[in-house]
């Protein structure tokens, strides 16, 4: 994937969430965003997902500049899979129906074809046993894995995950991280926000550090974690390691 951010700004009630965030990444499979909370990671991810519109600046994903009008955004969103911190499965639908909805309604697949695709993905991640369960009867880890399956099932070019393990009990964190690992091994392109530093250093091609609405540093995880250049990253890393 190629990702280019040019002076992306976004403020809420005259408070900056992103202020001239710029960066450029090429030939990248997995990008991990780290940084203190409130720094603007989610806002950036939501802009890339087409769920939020920047006040100024431009975002280019794979040579294509995102057009922020509603009609183009609907199409853009169909090319991207998003996984939220709080799962966000549709509670009135079973796990299988949660996967069918994007396939049949957004992508116009026939019911039978959609069913085949959905069941294939579910069984691939050993989730087929939960196909007919409603979200309320699933554990947090199971919900999040189904949410990831829903993001995958339409074969998006890019998958965005915003702190997919933060709302989980520690014992469920691993099952979700393993699934993210598997995505990477399958060659899927992804951008992940996480506080799991060990996982970040293992799974990232590139890490970007975001604080105060800016991308302060980026680079391969080994380099970034061993020789942080900005004082903000140094403080952040020492805090994260002490956790």
């Amino acid at each position: 994937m190629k990702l280019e951010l040019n002076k992306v700004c976004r403020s809420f009630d005259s408070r900056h969430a992103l202020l001239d965030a710029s960066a450029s990444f090429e030939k990248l499979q997995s990008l991990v965003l780290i940084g203190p909370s409130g720094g603007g990671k989610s806002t950036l991810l939501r802009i890339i997902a087409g769920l939020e519109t920047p006040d100024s600046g431009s975002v280019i994903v794979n040579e294509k500049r995102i057009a922020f009008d509603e009609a183009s955004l609907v199409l853009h969103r169909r090319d991207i899979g998003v996984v939220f911190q709080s799962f966000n499965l549709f509670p009135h639908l079973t796990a299988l129906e949660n996967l069918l909805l994007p396939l049949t309604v957004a992508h116009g697949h026939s019911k039978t074809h959609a069913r085949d695709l959905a069941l294939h993905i579910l069984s691939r991640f050993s989730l087929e046993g939960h196909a007919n369960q409603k979200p309320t009867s699933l554990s947090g880890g199971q919900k999040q894995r189904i949410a990831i399956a829903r993001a995958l099932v339409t074969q998006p070019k890019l998958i965005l995950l915003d702190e997919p393990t933060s709302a989980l009990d520690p014992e469920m964190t691993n099952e979700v991280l393993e699934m993210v690992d598997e995505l990477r091994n399958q060659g899927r392109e992804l951008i992940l926000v996480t506080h799991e530093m060990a996982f970040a250093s293992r799974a990232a091609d590139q890490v970007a550090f975001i604080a105060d609405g800016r991308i302060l540093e980026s680079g391969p995880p080994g380099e970034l974690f061993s020789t942080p250049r900005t004082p903000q990253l140094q403080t952040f890393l020492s805090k994260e390691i002490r956790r």
Partner: protein
Amino acid sequence: MSKLTLLFNRTLVLRERQEGATRAQLWINAALVLLIGIALGGFALKRANLSWQWDLLTPYWRLYLDGWKTTLTLSACSLLTSAVIGVTLALSRRSRILPLRYAAVCVVEFIRSTPLLVQIYILFYIGAEAVHLENRFIAGTITLSLFSGAYISEIVRSGIEGVGKSQIESAKAIGLTRFQTYRHVIFPQALRASLPSLAGQFVSLVKDSSLLSIIGLNELTQSARNVASFTFSNFESYLVLAAGYCICTVPLSLWARGLENRMRYET
């Protein structure tokens, strides 16, 4: 405590932690309440010095039947139209087109803060007159649908607002359009959440239709009034009237109760 009071308490009062009445408790207490009701009613009748004259009504059974049929069709038509109006008003209130939004607010608030009686007069003597609508049935259906639609719009609106922002966001994220989001994510959940209240509103609608007798619509209440004036037997005629409404409303109420119970276990 004597054995008798203990027995009384066991039968009449639920014990702490006891969830519902046992079958025996149900029958004994229901019978008790029924008996007290009959006794009170009988006492009142005796004091009021009424004598039953049911036979006076029998020649008019056709009038009742016709009125009842009219009430039933009127309610059924209004039920459908009011549902359409209710959803339209609720959506208008959420519209990004501001004139539409404010118009919906005004209509809903006006209807909810004035008596149905006044609305019937306004719609019939001004609205219907202005467009030369002479059919009372249609005029009545429109009035009742607007009235009930305003209440339904509030029920639907709170149902829609009950669907969280995060779900609307995930609907967007999987690539649904605004329309698809309403159709597949918001409406199914909003409907499920508001069905019990909607059923309750439909019961009210059936009873509210009785006010349309004031514009001379020959529905059940009008029939009862006519029979009462022919026979001078107010009490009997209106008891038949009450029974006629119960036949329509009790099944609706039971349905609403059933829905409420089911919802409690589902979520």
